[in-house]
């Protein structure tokens, strides 16, 4: 399984121009003796969108969970905004893939958003206005009184994003957030996410299975190799913004990256 590192300098801070919002420093992690991540080093610039791809078992979700403070690394460290991560933080929001399980079924849309505000100790009077604004931002105005089970998958994921935005995060960690949605909904949500991120200036660490999604959204695409999880390739995405579902995806650069990353995944899966 020995594979040459496509970039000898993988993770040596390829994007050192901007100040780092998230920085993985030689992060290593093993579960019951089996190494999951080995020496993962990566700096994500402020306001950057970094997409992480890789075959299953490459540790991309684990890397996200370490950055979110849900899992402690065995070695190395992660800093967000210069401060080391020791547990979940309010300025780091996590969007889970399984929105159906991550939402509280006994609370309405407004109630689910409210949970984040309650956790942050926002005063009761403020909440209503902020909930309204957040639901509006993700396109759920008029659905405040619906329960999650009364909403479509796309709406539920929008709701989870609204709840995360209620934390006013500087970093959004997104774990295959659109993986379970149909193609049309996925594209709509991709564009909505890009405009929300552009508006808030948040840094995004986006894990996905979908190569095209990674290229379409990202400023950079990181390809991980499995056993143990480590960086295999880093692709700079030189596509202009704002991106467009039709035009961007037809650009030669998009197609070139798609081919390169497809080859990478095929080799990685061996």
């Amino acid at each position: 399984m020995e594979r040459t590192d496509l970039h000898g300098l993988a993770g040596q801070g390829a994007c050192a121009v901007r100040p780092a919002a998230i920085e993985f420093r030689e992060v290593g992690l093993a579960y019951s003796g089996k190494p999951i991540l080995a020496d993962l080093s990566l700096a994500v610039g402020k306001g950057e969108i970094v997409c992480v791809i890789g075959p299953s078992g490459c540790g991309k979700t684990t890397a996200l969970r370490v950055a979110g403070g849900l899992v402690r690394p065995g070695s190395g460290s992660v800093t967000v905004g210069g401060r080391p991560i020791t547990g979940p933080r309010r300025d780091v929001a996590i969007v889970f893939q399984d929105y159906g399980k991550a939402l509280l079924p006994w609370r309405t849309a407004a109630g689910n958003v409210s949970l984040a505000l309650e956790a942050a100790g926002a005063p009761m009077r403020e909440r209503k206005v902020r909930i309204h604004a957040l639901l509006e931002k993700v396109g759920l105005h008029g659905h405040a009184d619906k329960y999650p089970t009364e909403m479509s998958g796309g709406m539920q994921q929008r709701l989870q994003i609204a709840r995360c935005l209620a934390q006013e995060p500087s970093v959004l960690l997104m774990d295959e957030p659109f993986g379970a949605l149909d193609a049309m909904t996925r594209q709509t949500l991709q564009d909505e996410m890009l405009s929300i991120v552009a508006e808030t200036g948040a840094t995004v660490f986006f894990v996905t299975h979908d190569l095209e999604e990674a290229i379409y959204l990202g400023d950079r695409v990181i390809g991980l190799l499995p056993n143990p999880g480590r960086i295999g390739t880093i692709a700079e995405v030189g596509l202009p913004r704002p991106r467009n579902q039709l035009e961007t995806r037809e650009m030669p650069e998009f197609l070139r990256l798609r081919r390169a990353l497809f080859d990478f995944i095929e080799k990685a899966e061996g």
Partner: protein
Amino acid sequence: MSRTAKALAIPAALLVAAEIAVRLSGTASLAVAPPSSVVVALLAALGDGTMLAATRDTLACAFGGLFLGGAIGLVLGLLFGLVRPLDRLMELTVEAIRPIPSVALIPIGMLSLGFGYGFEIAIVAFACVWTMLIMTRAAIAGIEPRLLEVSRALRLSTPQRIFKIVIPAALPRIIVAFRLAAGFALVVAVTVEIAANPQGMGYGILIAQQSLSPQLMLAYLLWIGLVGYGLNVLLSLAQKKLLGRAAMVEVRR
């Protein structure tokens, strides 16, 4: 023909058949009586207040025991579910006491508490504790792990986590546990009355039997069935009311 009419057809036919069979055979049985005389006995017992007084006594003990035992079981179940080390510490003790049939405690209860409400409530409570404890604990263990992760990611405080996530998430199952315990409570209360405690509907059955009055005995039986049924309907309504639309969500899953 409506569904209700269809559902009633068989029981009605059986009742008529029983009436005819008992009348024709002409036996003076001590165990059975024609349905018509059972109804007459029931109406008479309801009319003179004895049946209602017995019902009051039994339900007072059943509910008293249910709330006492249910509360203890709920609190212990929450504690054991939330504090795993405590659960492991208590596991052997719980598993050693739990299999004791509650009615086996009747002789001890009788000696230590004497006849009356306290004794019966204690036995019923003992029966209800375990249902609530075990099922509440299981309800907490069965909470979607992602929800607990969300509560961590949002940095909910421990009281917030318990009151905003754990209890609402476990509530549907806790209510099912309560309904089950309510069923047990009535069974145990009547059993205690038949076996020892001279009050309530169980004692009424016993006295009717010993005074060679099968129609009254069967009237009590019929009445206990009706009370049990009514109780279940009531609790089911309360469950819907309490959980609202969230209850329907749970059903749909």
